[in-house]
């Protein structure tokens, strides 16, 4: 599941100096990219655990359930954080300059 289109509109870079590909790993877009990777990683882990159990009979049901829940929670957390950033961004944009 590719989440990049979801957060791409909110990656800020360029002249206002918030972030850029050449800067250190703590820029805004870097944080988002890392978060997206983690969420996608969790989804992949859950999916392969489920396939291992169903196709090969390897693994236990409770571990697959845990992997699935972790992926869901990761996504939920990510969405909440993204929503916060979006609303903060919108607040800032409303300020008269």
């Amino acid at each position: 599941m590719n989440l990049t289109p979801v957060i791409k509109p909110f990656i800020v870079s360029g002249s206002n100096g918030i972030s850029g590909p050449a800067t250190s790993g703590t820029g805004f877009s870097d944080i988002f990219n890392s978060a997206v990777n983690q969420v996608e990683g969790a989804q992949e882990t859950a999916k392969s655990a489920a396939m291992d159990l169903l196709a090969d009979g390897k693994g236990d049901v409770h571990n697959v359930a845990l992997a699935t829940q972790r992926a869901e929670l990761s996504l939920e957390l990510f969405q909440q954080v993204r929503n916060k950033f979006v609303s903060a961004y919108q607040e800032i944009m409303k300020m008269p300059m």
Partner: protein
Amino acid sequence: MSLFTAISISASGMEAQRSRAEVITENLANADTTRTPEGGPYKRKDTVFTTAPVSWSFSDALSEASGQTLSGQSLGVTVSDISIDDRDPERRYIPGHPDADADGYVAFPRVDPAEEMVDLMSASRGYQANVAAISAVKDMIARSIDLFR
């Protein structure tokens, strides 16, 4: 490596005990059979239990078929042999009996009904214990699936 293997193991136990019960009831039914097609009285039988690996998944069955041994973990049971009790028959003195020999003795099977009944009860207990094990595992699997919600 999982709860499903445990079910296969218990199922093998149920199968073995059921087989054993069948053999015992055959012994009991033929306790007084003095005449068989092979000649002579019925010879009682015993089931021989040995451990046997079980598989439940496709990949397990595949490796078993190709000759690789499964891990030592999934040990079920199987009836590897039904052995025939070759002891000399019991001889009872019944001169008028159609199967009596020249001295008036009739050869009877060596079936002791009391012994067979005790054995049958043991097979029944063993069977029930395996059923209880499967029931417990089914519950555990259901609880695991609940974790998805």
